[in-house]
């Protein structure tokens, strides 16, 4: 299997647009592909397709439950907890777990010598599977509101990919923080989508530097080309990053996308160029076997 992550430093550059169009084009040309929406904070790739929901997986973490009859109020669990999520007042024998702060690391149950701490699952989010002809084709991660980190939900979604699938397209979360790294670290190649504006350039630069630091091969797609200036092109040339494609800005494209429709569905030339782009990527990087 070959995994391609579609990412962008900045939000709204058309990352999801590129991801769903690549996926659609691959499927249309008869290739075996799966789309994984790793943008767990705001997943919306699945909305472009009318696939059947065939399964959901609850993503949970284990949070402590304290048996007050066994607790001796030694406060060792509190000391072990690095997230301040155990509240204890030994003189008045009060102990509470503040679940909102818990990261589920399990340190408190290791700390307890009196068997007073057991654990129960607490919801972090869900992974939804959408299928077509009994084959999972879209995997969506969605985290619960107010949860600290999207990472466990993203991990769970990536785990759902059937290793027998030909190509996996990962729609990565925006930014360059943990959730982004988590997603791109599992990919064989990263497509960075940017736009030709100063904001786009600044974010692209940050993404490129991050990817270099973890040795990930990447290429750039400039979306809404013609809207801003040439600074992004100059940067890409200077840094010798492959420029995979330029998608010119058009109101028509924006309109099609805004309605939740896929451009590649009505524009065979565009679909064809996406497929050959992917095939070239696989040709060049196919042997960089993914290791974790």
């Amino acid at each position, binding site marked *: 299997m070959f995994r391609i992550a579609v990412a962008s430093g900045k939000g709204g550059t058309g990352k999801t647009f590129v991801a769903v169009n690549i996926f659609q084009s691959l499927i249309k040309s008869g290739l075996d592909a799966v789309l994984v929406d790793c943008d767990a904070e705001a997943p919306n790739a699945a909305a472009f397709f009318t696939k059947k929901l065939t399964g959901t997986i609850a993503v949970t973490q284990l949070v402590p439950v304290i048996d007050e009859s066994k607790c001796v109020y030694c406060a060792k669990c509190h000391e072990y907890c690095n997230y*301040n*999520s155990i*509240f204890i007042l030994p003189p008045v024998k009060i102990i509470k777990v503040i679940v909102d*702060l818990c990261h589920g690391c399990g340190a408190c149950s290791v700390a307890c010598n009196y068997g007073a701490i057991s654990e129960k699952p607490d919801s972090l989010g869900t992974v939804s599977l959408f299928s077509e002809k009994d084959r999972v084709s879209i995997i969506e991660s969605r985290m619960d509101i107010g949860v600290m980190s999207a990472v466990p939900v993203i991990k769970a979604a990536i785990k759902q990919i059937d290793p027998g699938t030909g190509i996996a397209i990962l729609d990565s979360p925006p930014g360059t923080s943990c959730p982004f790294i988590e997603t791109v670290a599992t990919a064989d190649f990263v497509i960075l989508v940017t736009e030709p504006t100063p904001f786009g350039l600044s974010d692209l630069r940050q993404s490129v530097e991050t990817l270099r630091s973890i040795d990930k091969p990447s290429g750039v797609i400039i979306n809404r080309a013609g809207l801003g200036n040439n600074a992004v092109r100059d940067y890409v040339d200077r840094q010798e990053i492959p420029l995979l494609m330029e998608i010119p800005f058009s109101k028509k494209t924006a309109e099609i996308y805004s309605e939740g429709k896929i451009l590649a569905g009505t524009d065979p030339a565009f679909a064809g160029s996406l497929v050959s782009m992917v095939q070239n990527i696989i040709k060049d990087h196919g042997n960089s076997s993914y290791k974790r």
Partner: protein
Amino acid sequence: MKVAITSTGNTPESELDQRFGRCECFVIYDTETNSIEFIPNPNKDALEGAGPASVQIVASRGVEKVISGEFGIKVKSLFDSLKIQMIVIKEPEKKIIEIIDMLNKQ
């Protein structure tokens, strides 16, 4: 009765700290003995959960009232369950000594 006040410094002339969990310093004032104790807040720079950890500090001193500029949701429910009264003063320039004077006034 003991009262906790969040302070921006360790003198009676310091101003009230508007943050509870991340205040500079806690003042523990005893209305019976008139004693004042200053405790630097170790949770000031805590990554997460500064509020609950600070509740633990003041509650373990046996205070019955706590005075600050604002309390977070988690802090409120903890104080509620501990039956400690919360008092909110929305005047950042109020000095600790002025608050103590108010508490002493009959």
